[in-house]
């Protein structure tokens, strides 16, 4: 009986720990939302210690720290109004982000889905080597490919051009790999019987491959969206003109004294990502698992 109680207690502590950690994990979301609903004056009062950057310890006084509240004392939408009505550059950058994300994802689907199908369903000499190249490329961090990316964009005169961001990413091999994993699990018998019925390879791909592999396609899209909505290194390296920058580079530009605006932009950047996350969480999980475990 005592042992049971002990296990029960351990379980309870475990649950408590989990909830606590989970709350820490999503704290940034609450933080941004609360901050975005505060007026600039309230923010200045709370964050004065950092914003004014006068060190209390230097002048011998007690150090003053930043404060925070769970809920705003005087909730207001003024920060959002400021961003949405008075900041034309916000919309320019928002559209740049949309253009990049949509362009990349459309390209990845257009060339990636057939490629994944080809890898998953056909045997040909050199396939293993070819696929290995794809896997190696997808795992390479941006910094390793930075110079080669630069060289090719320079050659094609695509530096400082949105296409220079979209085109290389559209040929990223990562979505091919994800979709490959899903296409692979479609039973071969299905294709054989379709062939016996006289269906051509293209028809099989469109009628069997795409519908049965749709979970993989959506997984690739969800993972891709989160990646490209958050793109930082590439635009930073290859786009000089500020009017071409995506939203992810806009935020760090905002002066720290305009905290209200910065919070509002944080939330506005966050919203599309959270919507995609909530709508596609199952696919996201499947996608993550497919990179690691062979079923």
């Amino acid at each position: 009986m005592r042992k049971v109680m002990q296990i029960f207690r351990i379980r309870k502590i475990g649950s408590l720990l989990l909830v606590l950690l989970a709350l820490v994990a999503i704290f940034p979301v609450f933080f941004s939302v609360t901050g975005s609903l505060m007026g600039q004056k309230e923010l200045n009062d709370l964050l004065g210690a950092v914003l004014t950057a006068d060190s209390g310890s230097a002048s011998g006084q007690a150090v003053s720290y930043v404060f925070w509240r769970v809920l705003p004392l005087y909730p207001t939408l003024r920060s959002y109004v400021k961003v949405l009505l008075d900041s034309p550059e916000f919309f320019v950058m928002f559209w740049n982000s949309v253009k990049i994300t949509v362009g990349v994802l459309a390209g990845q689907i257009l060339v990636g889905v057939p490629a994944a199908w080809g890898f998953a369903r056909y045997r040909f000499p050199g396939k293993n080597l070819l696929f290995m190249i794809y896997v190696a490329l997808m795992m390479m961090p941006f910094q390793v490919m930075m110079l080669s990316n630069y060289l090719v964009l320079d050659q094609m005169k695509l530096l400082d051009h949105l296409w220079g961001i979209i085109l290389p990413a559209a040929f990223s091999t990562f979505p091919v790999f994800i979709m490959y994993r899903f296409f692979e699990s479609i039973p071969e018998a299905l294709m054989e019987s379709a062939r016996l019925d006289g269906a051509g390879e293209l028809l099989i791909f469109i009628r069997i491959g795409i519908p049965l592999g749709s979970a993989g396609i959506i997984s690739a899209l969800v993972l891709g969206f989160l990646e490209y909505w958050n793109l930082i290194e590439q635009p930073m390296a290859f786009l000089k003109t500020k009017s071409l920058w995506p939203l992810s580079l806009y935020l760090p530009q905002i002066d720290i004294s305009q905290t209200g605006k910065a919070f509002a932009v944080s939330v506005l950047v966050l919203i599309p990502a959270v919507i995609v996350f909530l709508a596609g969480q199952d696919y996201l999980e499947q996608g993550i698992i497919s990179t690691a475990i062979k079923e």
Partner: protein
Amino acid sequence: MKINLKEHLSLTEKRNAKSDLLFSRKRNRRRCAAFRNTQKGLAFILPSFAGVCIFWLIPYVDVIRRSFCGAVNGEFVGIENYRTIFANKAFRLAAGNTLRFFGVCVPLLVVLSLIIAVLLAGQKRFTKILKSFFLLPMAIPVASVVLLWRLLFDDQGLLNHLLHMLSVQTTDWMNTGASFYVLVISYIWRNLGYDVVLWMAGLSAIPAALYEAAKVDGAGEWKCFTKITLPNLLPSLFTIVVLSVLNAFKVFREAYLVAGDYPQEKMYLLQHLFNNWYRDLSLDKMSAAAVVTGLVIFLLILGLWKAWGKGGAE
């Protein structure tokens, strides 16, 4: 969608049983078709492969070539560039920090995520929503947290405020060696859910019968964990470590947006170095560093490849 798939499958199975006889007769004809299919398979891949060659493969091969050439006149200089970077102080600092970063935070992340995954798997209620909470940071754009990071890790920031209230010695996070932990915290926060999902997939693959049999034999929870859970998760371990290492490269985003081009010394990673060399257009050093880093990562991937192969054979 899932139901649909099942229906489809059972249908084809029925159809298959009927056509089994037909199949053996048609085997010869199918062999001819195999060749045609090879070409069709290649046709599916060709558009993608052409793009991959143009945008990724050929330029990288060119970088490998350049790494053996001088910066000024493009003459062949052998391993001179490699010698330069290994003697370069910034490169050694950055490589050292990067390795140290991997050495500290990858084991930390892997263990922490395993603990959370085991706790989550034992949870009866709210499992799904808790998992979402852990996974959500993956979706949060870096831009959205930059401000929080600044307010959190400032000398007079929230974290120090908390430490001060708990009467713990505060640290100037961004301007001392403690900046290293800013990286570690960023990394763990963002990647915890990813690893938890992977571990949970590993956990769910362990047959429940094993636990039941052990319980009948009188094994306690801890014994079940060490004798059943851990050994069964071992095959996933390698994959999770490699993926965690590769994800670790992305911590640069936070580091850069919070601290800029030249952050505190302990925070200076290979990614910063690449970025700074890129700005100076030191093509010779960059190409050599890209080859060295690429090679190290390629070896990791080879290991991963082998691990996948084993998983398939089982």
